């Protein structure tokens, strides 16, 4: 269906075709869902909230609940103050959340609503909390929105007690799946490090079916834990784009030292993550992790011939794409095209460094790009594999290139909520997916005489 994408690339400066990003508020909503007992509130038109809920519902296959200020023309003329005040009262009256996390939209930002003033003049029931993040849709992307809401958790709630630390590590997982967050927690537990993870959507957006609908599932970081963040001995922020801002905010506000690392996708990034944990805590590598790493290396060796030398295009969100590019290089693949829709020169620099230091010369990397451009690159010089979100399926079909689904959103397959891509176990899963995708295509299309039982 994207067959009408022209091969000739004409310069575009105003038009985006087939975006590789979406807007801030949905990222803020996802982050907010990682707080226990939180109802996200969208300060804007009904449509935004409806679209965000719909999109998240399709990705997670879970009920996504969020309230909205339901802007009208009146609100746009006189400001959204009445809507938000009334909205917050209604929310606490009907849905009784522990905390409401308000995100703005392009509309309320352009009108210039002062959320700090509006919220402080609203009657919030005793013991309940309201935080907010400015998330104008015309700046950055959904990753920026996730980052801003995560930072807001620190700004509004974190504090440092006089009597010293809590001996916990603050850990910011970034815009990853609930399964990834659970895997990062498992690794921390294996090493034996007490921690506060924020946000934490595991147990919220991959909750078990019990025959009952629970509006606020068991998972999520609690408000108490968020308040306690200032007493942590250090922060590990996974991913520059999604997590760095909150870590620096915590450093500024409560002098908790920030350590910014890559999202631990692939063997190198996971090694770096674990080594950093060990250094910060003076702990030993647990036997289980040593074994998992050994298994990963074993698998990499067993089937290295399946993917070595294959050309791959990787697209999606910057933190995940950067780590995935590094892992692809570890596997001997050639990342030929690497693209994100999120703006930011750090992405282009980091990816370029990874590729150059691997001796790869012939590649294209782009931030603030779109999928029409990626498709045009591929049309001009093909790759063997595509790694990215569901939107890659159009290119995959048009060019007959297998697609390994990774990132956000995945609207047409399951698994991402339950099986991680981070850590050594996650890396093994990625290898399985890549190998299966390449071999399935080969088995389907190879000449009869080349069709083999053992591969």
């Amino acid at each position, binding site marked *: 269906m994207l067959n009408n994408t022209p091969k000739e690339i004409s310069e575009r400066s105003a038009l985006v075709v087939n975006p590789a990003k979406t807007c801030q508020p949905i990222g803020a909503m996802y982050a907010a869902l990682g707080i226990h007992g939180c109802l996200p509130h969208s300060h804007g038109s009904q449509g935004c909230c409806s*679209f965000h809920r719909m999109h998240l519902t399709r990705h997670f296959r879970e009920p996504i609940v969020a309230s909205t200020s339901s802007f009208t023309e009146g609100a746009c003329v006189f400001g959204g103050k009445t809507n938000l005040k009334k909205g917050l009262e209604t929310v606490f009256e009907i849905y009784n959340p522990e905390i409401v996390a308000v995100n703005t939209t392009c509309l309320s930002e352009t009108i210039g609503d002062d959320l700090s003033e509006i919220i402080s003049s609203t009657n919030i029931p005793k013991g309940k909390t309201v935080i907010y993040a400015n998330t*104008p849709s015309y700046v950055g992307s959904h990753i920026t929105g996730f980052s801003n809401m995560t930072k807001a958790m620190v700004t509004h709630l974190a504090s440092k007690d006089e009597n010293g630390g809590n001996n916990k590590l603050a850990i910011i997982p970034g815009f990853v799946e609930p399964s990834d967050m659970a895997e990062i927690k498992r690794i921390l537990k294996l090493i034996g490090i007490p921690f506060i993870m924020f946000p934490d959507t595991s147990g919220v957006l991959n909750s078990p079916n019990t*025959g009952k609908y*629970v509006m606020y599932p068991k998972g999520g970081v609690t408000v108490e834990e968020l308040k306690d963040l200032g007493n942590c001995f250090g922060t590990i922020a996974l991913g520059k784009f999604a997590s760095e801002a909150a870590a620096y905010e915590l450093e500024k506000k409560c002098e908790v030292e920030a350590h910014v690392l890559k999202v631990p996708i692939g063997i190198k990034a996971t090694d770096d993550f674990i080594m950093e944990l060990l250094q910060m805590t003076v702990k030993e590598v647990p036997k289980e992790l040593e074994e998992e790493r050994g298994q990963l290396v074993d698998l990499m060796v067993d089937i290295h011939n399946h993917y070595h030398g294959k050309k791959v295009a990787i697209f999606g969100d910057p933190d995940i794409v950067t780590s995935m590019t590094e892992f692809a290089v570890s596997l001997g693949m050639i990342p030929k095209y690497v693209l994100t829709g999120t703006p930011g020169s750090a992405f282009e620099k980091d990816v370029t460094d990874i590729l150059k230091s691997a001796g790869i010369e012939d590649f294209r990397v782009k931030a603030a790009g779109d999928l029409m451009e990626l498709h045009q690159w591929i049309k001009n010089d093909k790759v063997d594999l595509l790694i990215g979100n569901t939107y890659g399926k159009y290119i995959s079909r048009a060019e007959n290139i297998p697609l390994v689904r990774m990132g956000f959103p995945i609207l047409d397959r399951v698994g991402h909520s339950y099986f991680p891509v981070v850590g050594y176990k996650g890396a093994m899963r990625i290898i399985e997916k890549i190998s299966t995708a390449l071999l399935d295509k080969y088995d389907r299309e190879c000449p009869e005489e080349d069709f083999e039982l053992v591969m």
Partner: protein
Amino acid sequence: MKSLEAYPLEERKSHILVKEKDQNQGISCGRHSVSGVVSQRACVYCGARVVLNPITDAVHIVHGPIGCSSYTWDIRGSLSSGSEMFRNSFSTDLEEKDIIFGGEKKLSEAIDEIVRAKFPKAVFVYSTCVVGVIGDDIEAVCRAAERKYGIRVIPVKSTGFAGSKKDGYKAACDAIISLMDGGKYERGVKDPRSFNYLGDFNLAGEIWVVNNYFKEIGLNMITGVTGDSTVEKLRKARNASFNIVQCAGSSIYLAERMKEKFGIPYEKVSFFGIQDTVSSLIKLAELSGDEEVKKKTEKLIRIMVAEVEPVLEKYRKKCRGKRVAIYVGGGFKAVSLIKQFSELGMKTVMVGTQTGRKQEYETIRELVEEGTVILDDTNPSELEKFMKEKGADLLVGGVKERPLAYKLGMAFIDHNHERKHPLIGFEGAVNFAREVDLTLNSPVWEFVRKGGLHE
């Protein structure tokens, strides 16, 4: 009634009705949602986009920040027999500087870039919330582009906050009228057998199913509006002798305008369920005034009913007596569904719509049995409450309702954008019954009902 008394929010009470108890009282509808409530409703832009999107060879460019375009990229499930242009996503991706200095220049450049790369037959330019606030003169930009390129560039007044989804339908219909106006109009005697089919968006190819009937009985459908339509076909639409309208919520306004402007009369039809399909076909034959057509119609009905009745009977045995909850967009669809379920021997115990009209709610009230709960613009808590209270076995709804039903261990059918098989006409009635049977009688519910290991 107990459930109403237990329900806390005063403003919502008039939107809920129980047949029998409140016999003399009408339902409140068509009002704006209460701020702070988790509404299932969307915005003006959403309404306009879903109506216009299936115009297959047009470019649909969204003038606003990226989100509005991302969330509506190919979500409708409309099929095309020709161009796939409409399944791409075009946006001006407004950024901060555009909000400050205005986005007209960027829009104008974006249109230039589109025309250079794609040579579309027509371009629809959608306005969004933020564009409504910063006051870009989209109409002037479109006029200038029309003059420059000699193609239709049509502004769609779909500023998100300026009304509800229904106002978006209206904005879309105005844009369609603008396209039809000035179209090819062959003066002279119209063919009494030529008509347009309004309010079908060719989800899962549904127009193709009914168009087979139209051909069979000797009628000539000029175009579906907007399902599987093209710019060219829509411009010929005014040659029709009459219009029939399937989805009244979105398209009755268009039918009215076409009557006013081009003197084309219209009738409402529904091809959902055997009963409605039969009566609509008879109505259609009468509209043509052609005896031959009437005879062929009777024959078609006889053959089709004889063909599907035994199949339906098979499903009826498996579904009889089960209880259904319905929550859909418009009232007219709800009416069709109630009848269709009763054809399967099933009982509707709850009916709700996002944007139903007073008159439709009256019809619903006449159709349903006593004790049935009727809801306007509801939210997940209300849905859960009434579905449980009424002991519903099956929910019919859209994207956001699906996981809610599943969490409750309840069967589910998407009668919206995610339908995968045509549910229209005689074949559709069979598909519908099959889908009801597949979900209702799946073995998976047993595992939900039995509870966990400890229960």
